C-alpha cells in the first residue's frame, strides 16, 4: 500500500475507517479527499517539475506534503527541483522501510504521541512556510488559508479543511491586483 498509494494521510484514513469496521467505499471517500490535495500541489509545482513526459510522470508520484514544501521553500528553480527530488525520494524510501518495520514490530513500540511525534509535523511545515512569507501576497494567502482550514475543522469531513485552505489564494490575488494597479498609474 505504501508503494502504490504513497499518500500517508490517505493511507491512515483508509486504515482508520476499515479498522473501525467501515465499508471499503466509505474508507475510499476520505482517502480520495486527502489525495486531492496533491492535485493542488501538482499545480504549485508546475514551474519546478520540468523535463520530458516520462520524467515528469515519474516525478509526479513523489508529490507529497513534504516534497512540495521543501521545493517551494527554494527560490531558484534548479535548487527547488533538487530539493523536491531529494525529499520525495528519501521520504519514499523511509516511508516504505518504515511500513515494513511497523508491520514486523507491530505493537512493540509505545504511543508515538508520548514522544511528541505528532507535534513535529506542524513545526516542520511552519519552518518551511516561513521563508515563503516574504513573497508578494503570500502572507495574506497563509492567513486566510489557515483561518479557513481551522474554521472548517469542526464541520467538514477529514481532508476537506486543508483542501479548502487553497481558497486563501483568492484574497491574496485580489491584493496583488490592487497593488499592481496602484503601482501603474
Amino acid at each position, binding site marked *: 500500500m505504501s508503494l*502504490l498509494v504513497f499518500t500517508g494521510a490517505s493511507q491512515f484514513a483508509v486504515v482508520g475507517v476499515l479498522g473501525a469496521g467501515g465499508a471499503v467505499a466509505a474508507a*475510499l471517500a476520505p482517502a*480520495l479527499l486527502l489525495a486531492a490535495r496533491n492535485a493542488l500541489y501538482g499545480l*504549485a509545482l508546475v514551474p519546478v517539475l520540468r523535463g520530458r513526459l516520462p520524467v515528469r510522470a515519474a516525478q509526479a508520484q513523489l508529490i507529497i506534503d513534504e516534497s512540495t514544501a521543501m521545493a517551494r521553500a527554494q527560490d531558484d528553480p534548479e535548487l527547488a527541483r533538487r530539493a523536491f527530488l531529494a525529499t520525495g525520494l528519501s521520504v519514499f524510501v523511509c516511508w516504505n522501510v518504515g511500513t515494513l518495520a511497523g508491520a514486523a514490530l507491530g505493537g512493540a513500540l509505545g504511543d508515538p504521541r508520548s514522544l511528541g511525534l*505528532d507535534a513535529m509535523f506542524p513545526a516542520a511545515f511552519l519552518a518551511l512556510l516561513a521563508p515563503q512569507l516574504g*513573497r508578494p501576497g*503570500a502572507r495574506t*494567502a497563509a492567513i486566510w488559508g489557515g483561518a479557513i482550514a481551522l474554521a472548517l475543522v469542526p464541520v467538514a469531513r477529514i481532508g476537506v479543511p486543508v483542501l479548502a485552505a487553497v481558497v486563501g489564494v483568492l484574497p491574496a490575488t485580489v491584493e496583488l491586483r490592487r497593488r499592481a494597479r496602484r503601482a501603474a498609474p
Partner: protein
Amino acid sequence: MTWGALIGLGLAAYALKAVGPLLAGHRPVRPGAAQVLELVAPALLAGLIMVQTFGGDHRIVLDARAPALGVAALLVWRRAPFLVVVLCAAATAALLRSLG
C-alpha cells in the same frame, strides 16, 4: 481490503498528483499565472499547520501541540536550523504530556 480497491486507490491518488505536471509541464508558465500558483503552497501549508495543531475528531482541540507550535514559531523567528525547530517542538509536546 481487496487488491482491486487498493490498486484503484493507488491509481486515483497518482492521477491527482500527475494532473499538473503532465498537462502543463511542457509549456512556459505565464508570469501572472505563476504568481498565483506561488500562493497555493503558503495557503495550503498554513491550512495544514492549523489542522495538524488544533485538529481533533471534528472539533478544535487545544493540547500539547499548540505550545509546541509556539516554541517552533519562536525558533523559526530566531532562525534556528530546521532540525532544531522540529526536535524542540517534539520535545515540548513530549515534556508537557509527561507532566500532565
